[in-house]
């Protein structure tokens, strides 16, 4: 699997996600600067976490108009998979690659903690190594992860199975007590309609080694390697 990781000014998890990809695929991804307008021929495009452009205006708003984004949109339209994590999710939401938007956490505090997620479907490039309904533990680290989408669109997301992950309790309950930011319907990650683009707030790339608090995120990258190699 050949991957490209996009580097924006102000992001800080690009090396973590590149390491996760290298560990699972055996290939170091290409690091592509946001000011470039060309992408190498790759099987996967990844936008990682951080604070692109200092979160000016709205988180992800500036980055969504970077030169490289036109090419990413073109590739995504052709079906090249795109993974946006944390700030990457905010960027691809601003760019219109996935529906909805990420607002300030409802409690107004930055949250850095392990959370539990319920995998909503195993029928995607990103989740094929998980079971539907499986509960995994991965960390979040964000101030603006409060997912919002208009009610009509929310229903469409549900009907089309575009919700990838929901925040839950350790026991897998969706009662809201496992929701770290006020996200609508406990939504932690969503797909585009074709399920070739995934945006999620939690950091699977920071849960790939047992000695660092857990490895539940590793299967996401392994699933991508299975599907794209």
């Amino acid at each position, binding site marked *: 699997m050949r991957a490209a990781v996009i580097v924006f000014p102000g992001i800080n998890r690009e090396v973590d996600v590149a390491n996760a990809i290298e560990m699972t695929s055996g290939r170091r991804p290409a690091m592509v600067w946001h000011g470039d307008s060309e992408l190498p021929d790759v099987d996967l495009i990844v936008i990682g976490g951080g604070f692109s452009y200092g979160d000016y*205006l*709205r988180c992800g*708003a500036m980055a969504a*108009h970077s030169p490289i984004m036109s090419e990413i949109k073109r590739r995504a339209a052709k079906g090249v998979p795109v993974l946006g994590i944390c700030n990457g999710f905010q960027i691809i939401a*601003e760019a219109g690659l996935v529906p*909805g*938007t990420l*607002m*300030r*956490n*409802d*409690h*107004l505090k930055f949250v850095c903690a392990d959370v539990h997620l319920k995998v909503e479907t195993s029928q995607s490039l990103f989740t094929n190594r998980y079971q539907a309904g499986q509960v995994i533990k991965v960390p979040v680290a964000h101030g603006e992860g409060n997912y*919002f*989408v*208009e009610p009509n669109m929310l229903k469409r997301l549900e009907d089309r199975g575009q919700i990838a992950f929901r925040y839950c309790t350790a026991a897998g309950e969706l009662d809201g007590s496992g929701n770290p930011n*006020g996200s609508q319907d406990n939504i932690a990650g969503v797909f585009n309609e074709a399920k070739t683009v995934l945006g999620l707030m939690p950091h699977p790339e920071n849960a790939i080694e047992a000695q660092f608090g857990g490895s539940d995120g590793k299967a996401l990258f392994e699933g991508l390697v299975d599907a794209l190699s």
Partner: protein
Amino acid sequence: MKARVHITLKHGVLDPQGKAIGNALHRLGFAEVGEVRQGKFIELELGGSDVETARGRLDEMCRRLLANTVIENYSIELLA
């Protein structure tokens, strides 16, 4: 030409910052304060002199960058 753009959260969209400001005002003794909504104010200088053209361009700026129309409304004020 100068333009002022006001960006506000749509009704029905929770505004936790506005709520926190309201709570702080209550603590300061401003008991008359009801709901508080926070927004953004952007002032721009524009070249050209045609008001209609400017309005159209500003509308496009708002839709493409300045506002996120999933959650925000915007209004444009033009000053000669």
